[in-house]
């Protein structure tokens, strides 16, 4: 049995079925990300003055990732255009570029996550706070048993509020060095993971969900670039439509990042 309207437009909708399907899917995605963006706005406006972090994310890396996704949107479009003019070699090249750009994006995102997960804040027994990246810990380090030491590369502050706004002149002037703290001096220790505070929770939720979409899109594009491209020999028009549909999803994921970048990195 032949599947109808994979190439020809359906008379009642005016578009082929796969395109209608992907737009319905994207409508549900808008609701998913829309809900999370609403959560972000509510958490942000509900935060007490001076409590919302600033400058916690690396703007340079965020900008590079933005450019990578923008370039991948262009290569996706060029891959589709190459199919339209029946240039299969060019399609292969442009979609390979898309895959490489997407993997680079994920690599940079992983580096950013690693940076946050190895960044620690220690509440000390003397009321001060030690903040910095993990360097090493002694073999007998055990916070529960209060044994051993941990070494961080960072600084010690009197007030926790000094750690909130990293764009402030005080934070910029802070001298970072290796500090070794005994477990007996630590009241509470935690990394900048999702459980650290509201900002890291919504940051990991939004960017994690977005990264999963990038990963899913990359797998689909890889399939169409590799084994799925056999359809080009039997049904090139239908294959071209598949490339367009995957391109629509990819553009949506890129659009989400265009909103995520300023909201998380620049504010």
């Amino acid at each position: 049995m032949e599947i109808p309207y994979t190439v020809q437009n359906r008379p009642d909708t005016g578009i082929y079925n796969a395109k209608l399907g992907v737009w319905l899917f994207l409508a549900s995605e808008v609701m998913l990300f829309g809900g999370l963006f609403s959560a972000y706005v509510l958490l942000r406006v509900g935060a007490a003055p001076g409590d919302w972090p600033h400058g916690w994310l690396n703007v340079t890396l965020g900008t590079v990732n933005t450019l990578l996704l923008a370039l991948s949107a262009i290569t996706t479009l060029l891959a589709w255009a190459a199919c339209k003019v029946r240039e299969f070699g060019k399609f292969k090249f442009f979609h390979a570029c898309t895959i490489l750009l997407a993997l680079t994006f994920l690599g940079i995102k992983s580096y950013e996550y690693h940076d946050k997960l190895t960044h620690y804040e220690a509440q000390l027994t003397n009321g001060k706070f030690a903040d910095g990246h993990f360097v090493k810990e002694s073999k007998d380090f055990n916070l529960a048993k209060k044994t051993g030491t941990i070494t961080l590369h960072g600084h010690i502050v009197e007030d926790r509020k000094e750690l909130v706004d990293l764009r402030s002149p005080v934070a910029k002037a802070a001298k970072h060095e290796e500090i070794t703290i005994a477990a007996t001096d630590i009241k509470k220790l935690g990394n900048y993971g999702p459980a650290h505070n509201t900002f890291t929770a919504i940051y990991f939720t939004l960017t994690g969900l977005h990264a999963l979409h990038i990963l899913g899109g990359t797998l689909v594009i890889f399939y169409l670039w590799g084994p799925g491209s056999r359809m080009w020999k039997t049904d090139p028009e239908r294959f071209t439509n598949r490339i367009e549909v995957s391109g629509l999803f990819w553009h949506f994921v890129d659009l989400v990042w265009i909103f995520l970048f300023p909201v998380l990195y620049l504010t």
Partner: protein
Amino acid sequence: MSLKAFHLIFVTLFTALSFGCAAWAFQSGSVLWGVTAVVAGIFVIIYGVYFLKKLKSVSYL
């Protein structure tokens, strides 16, 4: 809506993002970042016009 039309929306929003970033950078005192973002915004507009001319025959639907 075809990929062409969606790409046009993407280009428009990316242009807005570039100029928005430029405003943010100038406000933060990073002149170099600001100028780079303005140049990027202009480049994206030029690309958008080029893209529209190139895919003239492709439908928006």
